């Protein structure tokens, strides 16, 4: 009901033709974004709001596949930023998307607790038996990418890993010292995380490139603000994404 009121307000404003302070789209949108985008998108949101008074961006972060299911079943999302193509495909089928574009890429990295209790020195060390490992679950983009990377590197795990709900959960486990090693995105090693972990680099030749698509979700009640936000991510937001460690989309 609130969104109908807001939409009416926008229409009224547009019709009345009166100039409002700051100009630009107003109202509220709900952005569903992959967990790995938590810090960067939160920052992008704040900057966007400051640049567009009257606009309010709300975020729902989580595993991309779970978010896609939520959008398909639940509705209510205006923008979807996924960590891989499959979840975006699902949303494109139902309810549909507009202005779809790739906005960032990411790479994987192995992290271990700061004191490295299992003495992991390189990627292949994680195939040792008797290790406590954490990786994202199979359906989640981070999980899919991890398995693709292992295949590419022709590595087989000999310790059964804990399948986490998303990359952030893997980070948690490593930060708390509950596992010996985990595979996450490079962007997950934020400044606050880096003090608690040690990074084990994955050679580029075997690493996978995660492609992040973003789109406006069909059925959005505030298409103009949604479009405006997506446009910003692709443009002004790039600096923030780069600072967080994301690679450019091309």
């Amino acid at each position, binding site marked *: 009901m609130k969104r109908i009121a807001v939409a009416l307000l926008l229409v009224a404003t547009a019709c009345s033709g009166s100039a409002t302070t700051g100009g630009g789209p107003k109202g509220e949108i709900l952005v569903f974004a992959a967990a790995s985008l938590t810090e960067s998108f939160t920052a992008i949101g704040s900057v966007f709001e400051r640049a567009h008074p009257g606009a309010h961006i709300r975020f*729902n972060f*989580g595993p991309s596949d779970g978010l896609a299911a939520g959008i398909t079943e639940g509705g*209510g999302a205006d923008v979807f930023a996924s960590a891989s193509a499959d979840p975006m495909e699902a949303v494109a089928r139902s309810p549909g998307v507009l202005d779809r574009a790739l906005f960032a890429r990411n790479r994987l990295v192995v992290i271990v607790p700061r004191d490295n209790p299992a003495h992991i020195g390189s990627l292949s060390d994680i195939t040792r038996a008797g290790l406590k490992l954490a990786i994202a679950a199979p359906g989640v983009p981070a999980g899919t990418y991890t398995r693709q990377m292992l295949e590419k590197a022709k590595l087989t795990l000999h310790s059964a890993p804990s399948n986490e709900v998303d990359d952030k959960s893997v980070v948690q486990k490593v930060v708390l010292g509950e596992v010996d090693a985990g595979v996450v995105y490079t962007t997950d090693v934020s400044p606050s995380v880096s003090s608690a972990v040690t990074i084990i680099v994955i050679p580029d030749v075997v690493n996978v490139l995660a492609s992040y698509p973003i789109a406006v979700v069909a*059925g959005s009640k505030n298409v103009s603000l949604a479009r405006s936000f997506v446009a910003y991510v692709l443009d002004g937001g790039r600096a923030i994404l780069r600072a967080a460690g994301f690679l450019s989309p091309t």
Partner: protein
Amino acid sequence: MNREGERAVVAPPRGVLVLAAFGVAFVVLPVAGLAIRAPWSDLGSLSSHGARTALGVSLVVTGGAVALALLFGLPAAIVLARGRFRGRALVRGIVLLPIVLPPVVGGIGLLAALGRRGLLGRPLEAIGIRLPFTTGAAILAAAFVATPLFVLAVEGGLRSIDPRLEQAASAMGASRWYVLRRVTLPLLRPQIIAGVVIAAARALGEFGATITFAGNIAGRTQTLPLSVYQTLQSDPGGAILQALLLVAISLAAMIALRGRLLSP
């Protein structure tokens, strides 16, 4: 050692005492662990915008869930305890199902029912009401898991009320509503209070159904448990403090109600 004049009680056997001690320790240990690992010097993080917002959302969601539990759970308990109809056992099983259902399954069920393609969701969308990923959704998710616990607490109480008291009230000229208002509910007060406390505790701690049906949206559906989960990713110390805040709230509620919980 008994006080003068106090009748001696038969003490429980030693084995029972030992097991009880373990039981208590089992519950106290995690809380103690939290308290020890908490960065007490950083207590100020609790007043951060994020934590305060999450607390506010939690209070709204819990309050709303308890209200729904009372509104729908009380009549349900009355019908289940007093009604005589075929299939009563089945209905009771269904009403109490959420207790044994994994919360995420409950969340998926709520999506299936109230999502945009859902049983009720589709007609609701048609008239402009969209529930998922709103604060209302968080209240519904919490109510879904809390109401059956409320029903359980109250139903037992209803069975223990002597039905002859209600019959006596009828014989004294009381209409059915009057009997409910002036006899049944007053006699049920301890169980209703216990039910409210249990329902509130469950609603406060609800996670799986909330995150699935209402999402993890700061200021709208991110309750304290969800906030703890998210904060754990970037600030474990802060997360522990928020977790302790949850413990403190529950403890305060228990202490405030300690007497009323048992006596009529």
